């Protein structure tokens, strides 16, 4: 009787190890990628006035994918002038129903080229093809369809008021959902009658440039949408330009703060969608197996490069051991590797720089004494990869629980009571999203009222819909994108 097991011991499983899936790669040849891309200004592809270009690589294998034009201040000037001209000459005068037709046309063209768009998104950014195929691209199309419908119904969106477009909108998008963020920004701006200069993130310009060619194909009046590529300097020049009436930025809190300073002395309207450190809260009465899945989707979706990622999990102490075992067993089944393989769950980290930042936090977590667990996948030799990782016994005061890592790294904390977890969940400078897992309806309502987060998901996580507004509290930014609310930042009365 020497090895009698204690009552609380949990027998481990070997999930996912009974069958390996043969490679099932999507075909890269479907994407027609040019060697070099110019700037899309005034309806034409124009060479950058500085004559310089920058390379973009495929993070999955570090091979060069294409080169894109580097826009300088002169190009920004050209783009803003073109947008202003288009606003005065065509777009603000056009009957709203006509505007709607153009947006519907863009949506349909995107849908027709959905496969190519998703392959491009995966090659350029490193996200699994399953996600770009099933989430990014269809959701981007849906945003265009949704806002196309609003174009001629704005008087119903703002009853008894007369909404008018603001003018020229400067839009800056991040590298985690390049096409989707472009859609979130372009669609409502066009529907409300504004013209646009948009700059995608420098590591992921490809699908935005493809979208420019779709917009050209849809025959939008020249200058209504201008796409300029480049890094931080290009973005700064765009933000500073006096001809801009409205800025929409999605990206890091640090850059968001700079933009806010920059625009403080102007009357440019500003919306910011910044970082997050969301709490995903699991009560003891939760549907545990589905909660495990929600936690996995919350943090490992898009390699954790999600501003609303559920990066802090609060699990009630009474179920913590079994919850952790289930989570680890589920993590063991996650397939890490080539993003173009249809079976890949976790693709490539977007850049070497981001991978280094994630690894810094993993080293820090180990040093801080949190218990570390990671999936055992063999990583490809070339490219930027990180195994799905979790830390348990993380303290509220640990940096792992406080700072945004933006990678597949999960911090697990425990709690005892409802009040305690609300206090802990709100104890962060961010406030973008939260998740609540419980079988008790009244608790969901109580929690969603008291959690300081723009979105609270109940028994689900990372669900999006064009009709639903999205945005943050505190240092996660302000303003809403999506839904009826997403029209407000682009109108004046």
């Amino acid at each position, binding site marked *: 009787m020497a090895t009698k097991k204690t009552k609380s011991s949990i*027998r481990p*499983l070997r999930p996912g190890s*009974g*069958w390996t899936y043969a490679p*099932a790669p999507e075909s890269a040849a479907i994407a027609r990628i040019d060697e070099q891309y110019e700037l899309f200004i005034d309806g034409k592809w124009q060479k950058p006035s500085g004559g310089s270009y920058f390379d973009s690589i495929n993070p999955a294998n570090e091979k060069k994918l294409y080169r894109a034009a580097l826009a300088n201040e002169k190009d920004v000037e050209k783009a803003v002038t073109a947008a202003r001209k288009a606003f005065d000459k065509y777009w603000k005068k056009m009957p709203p129903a006509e505007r709607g037709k153009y947006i519907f046309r863009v949506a349909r063209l995107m849908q027709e080229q959905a496969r190519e768009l998703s392959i491009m998104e995966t090659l350029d950014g490193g996200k699994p093809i399953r996600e770009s195929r099933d989430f990014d691209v269809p959701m981007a199309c849906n945003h265009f369809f949704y806002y196309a419908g609003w174009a001629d119904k704005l008087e119903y969106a703002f009853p008894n008021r007369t909404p008018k477009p603001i003018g020229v909108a400067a839009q800056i998008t991040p590298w985690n959902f390049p096409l989707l963020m472009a859609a979130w920004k372009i669609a409502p701006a066009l529907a409300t009658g504004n013209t646009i200069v948009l700059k995608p993130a420098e590591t992921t310009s490809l699908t935005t440039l493809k979208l420019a060619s779709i917009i050209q194909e849809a025959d939008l009046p020249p200058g209504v949408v201008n796409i300029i590529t480049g890094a931080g300097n290009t973005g700064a020049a765009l933000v500073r330009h006096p001809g801009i009436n409205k800025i929409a930025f999605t990206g890091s809190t640090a850059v968001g703060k700079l933009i806010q300073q920059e625009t403080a002395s102007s009357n440019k309207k500003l919306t910011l969608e910044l970082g997050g450190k969301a709490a995903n809260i699991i009560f003891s009465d*939760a549907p*545990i197996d589905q909660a495990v899945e929600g936690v996995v989707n919350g943090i490992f979706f898009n390699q954790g490069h999600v501003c609303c990622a559920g990066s802090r999990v609060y699990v009630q102490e009474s179920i913590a051991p079994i919850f952790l075992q289930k989570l680890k067993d589920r993590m063991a089944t996650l397939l890490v590797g080539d993003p173009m393989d249809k*079976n890949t769950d976790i693709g490539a980290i977007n850049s070497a720089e981001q991978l280094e930042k994630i690894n810094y936090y993993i080293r820090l977590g180990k040093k801080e004494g949190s218990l570390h667990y990671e999936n055992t996948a063999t990583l490809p030799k070339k490219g930027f990869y990180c195994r799905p990782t979790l830390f348990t016994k993380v303290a509220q005061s640990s940096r792992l629980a406080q700072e945004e890592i933006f990678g597949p790294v999960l911090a697990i904390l425990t709690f005892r009571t409802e009040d305690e977890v609300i206090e802990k969940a709100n104890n962060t400078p961010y406030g973008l999203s939260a998740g609540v897992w419980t079988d008790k309806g009244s608790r969901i309502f109580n929690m969603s009222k008291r959690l300081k987060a723009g979105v609270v998901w109940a028994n689900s996580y990372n669900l999006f819909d064009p009709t639903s507004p999205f945005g943050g509290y505190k240092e996660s930014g302000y303003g809403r994108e999506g839904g009826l609310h997403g029209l407000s930042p682009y109108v004046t009365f």
Partner: protein
Amino acid sequence: MKKIPPAVFKPSMLAGPAIDQTGVEERTARFTKRSIKAASKMQGLLLTLRMIDLTTLEGKDSVGKVEQLCYKALHLHDAFEGLPTVAAICVYPSHVRTAKKALQGSSVKVASVATAFPSGQSHLSIKLADTRFAVEEGADEIDMVISRGKFLEGEFAYVFDEIASVKAACGAARLKVILETGELGSLDDVRKASQLAIAAGADFIKTSTGKIQPAATLPVTLVMLETIRDHYYKTGTMIGMKPAGGISTSKLALHYLVMLNETLGADWMDPHWFRFGASSLANNVLMQIAKEREGCYQSANYFSVD
């Protein structure tokens, strides 16, 4: 060492986590996104064949029909060398002797439905007699049905005692407990019935009789697999799983195997622990195997209809 099931029902046997149907459906949708190709597809197809309980449960079943089905179980498609046999033949008790004789000397098991299959609407004594008869005739496995009416009335102790009694009547035969999930109405009840069956001594839990729609579905099977997993986490004892009814294509069977692999893992990827209750699945798998071997699909006329 096998634990003797507790003879007494305890309400704590029903205590389990809540089930969120939307979440279950999202999870099962993910399994269907796995792309199974080349060698892994062939491996999956062959494993599927080995996991089939080739079934005939009809009023018109005769000695001739059962003998032909047994021949098929042993000779799935002799034109291809090296094909495995199915796991078992599943018949009514009156055909167990015929099947046993036809399968003599092979590793194919004989499973028999019992306990007033499919409705289970009879007295316990008759159900026990039905079970003993099937076992005496030579059944290796007994597929019993639970009393769904009693379950829905909340008579959990009754259902528990019935399963425990049938288990005792099975002797050495393995007991599969059919929950008939299509009559249970919610995934919470599927979970509850699975726990009850396991606590009462089930060796296998099985979704359906095949006589009620819906029969096996991915969500229902996932909830049952997760119950088996929780039982294993707690006790270290493995329980088998048998989805039955409605699985007639290889593609769907492979989705079930993906689900099994990613939920319970390597130890369950074996006919001893997982079965497909099906009558027409085998031929569909054979057609896929033919396609993998020859590079093109063959007409259904090349495969025997049994």
